[in-house]
């Protein structure tokens, strides 16, 4: 790795160990990144659907998903554009709860997360099970705002944040991996921030 003349890096002595390599602490900012127009989806029209390799495909309405046992994530999030936000809380429902309700078939290995905008992102099944993924509608105790994916988004905080599809509409459970929107456009299939898996080939 070539050293850049004159670059020392500021604020490194105080660098938070929770920051993966190449990331900076956005502190009070929560930057917005999405590639489409921000949609306005009323909670009366919102649904979340799980289909594909499951025994009992189904959709939840806004009221139905709220009736499920709640689950909270407290921790950090990391965007591939190099900002991280530390110590956030998100409230919603664990993806485990949803998958238990539909019954995942044995040959299932991957999921395609979908959004009401048509956005997609692919994930290994094991990255959305075992207490690692949520569908959330509150951030830091307040309703998730539309620019951050409200009324509800997927949350997979151990991976780069494009995997946490905004305006989430469901999961399609698959045996074989397929690339989603950003992945077809050059981003990594898995996206582990601690391994700096930003782009295809990392």
């Amino acid at each position: 790795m070539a050293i850049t003349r004159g670059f020392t890096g500021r604020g490194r002595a105080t660098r938070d160990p929770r920051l993966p390599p190449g990331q900076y602490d956005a502190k009070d900012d929560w930057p917005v990144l999405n590639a489409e127009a921000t949609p306005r989806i009323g909670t009366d029209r919102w649904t979340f659907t799980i289909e594909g390799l499951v025994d009992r495909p189904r959709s939840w309405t806004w009221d139905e998903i709220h009736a499920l046992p709640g689950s909270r994530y407290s921790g950090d999030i990391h965007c591939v554009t190099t900002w991280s936000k530390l110590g956030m809380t998100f409230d919603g429902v664990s993806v485990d709860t949803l998958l238990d309700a539909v019954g995942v078939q044995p040959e299932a290995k991957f999921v395609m997360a979908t959004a009401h905008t048509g956005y997609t992102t692919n994930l290994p099944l094991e990255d959305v099970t075992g207490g690692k993924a949520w569908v959330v509608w509150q951030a830091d105790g307040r309703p998730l705002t539309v620019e951050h994916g409200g009324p509800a988004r997927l949350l997979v905080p151990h991976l780069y944040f494009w995997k946490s599809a905004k305006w989430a509409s469901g999961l399609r459970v698959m045996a074989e991996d397929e690339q989603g929107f950003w992945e077809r456009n050059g981003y990594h299939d898995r996206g582990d921030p601690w391994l700096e898996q930003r782009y295809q080939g990392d």
Partner: protein
Amino acid sequence: MAVWQTATVLDVRRETPTAKTFRLKLPAESGHIAGQYYVVRLTAEDGYTAQRDYSVASVPGTDEIDLTVELLPGGEVSEFLHEVVEPGDRLEVRGPIGGWFAWPGDAPALGVAGGSGVVPLMAMLRSARIAGSELFRLIVSARTPAALYYGDELPGPETTIVYTREVPPGYARPPGRITAADLEPLLLPEQTVFVCGTPPFCDTATDLLTGLGVGTDRIRVERFGPSS
């Protein structure tokens, strides 16, 4: 996918009081499509790194790329580029990246830019002009004439400039934010619309566009800078 390569800074040019264009020489021809970006990585002696994405303002087909960088207060990378980097320096870059916010030049497109969001759209405009193509139109919103990027080059029959705070002497359109009336004459059926700027600018522009009947499937958005 693109690997890291070492580029040499050929030229540093001031665009506005807060923006500079860095012309970089790559080891090989840049295969970018207008609208794509490169990642710039800075490395300290102890291995600490910082990297940011910067859109290419120049056209494909050579081994030189122009990256225009807005100075962000407290921005670790943009401040270093502005304050330290000079011709002859070497910078690690990786790209091109981004297959979505990109215009290959083969279909009608409209660019809607706010402030520094003009950078990727400038690559589209320059590509269209070199090709003699009339497929690309561009509207740029800038705060003041001094804050307008590429001010000498932008004006033309395919471009519209709106100023939000202060206009040049004798400018017909009064200062004010972009409106539906600014956008409507630029729209064509089947046109892809590329919107780039701050998140509030992008939201305003996409709301105006959808209000004018542009389907969300024809709108592609790139949001720059921190949100409020």
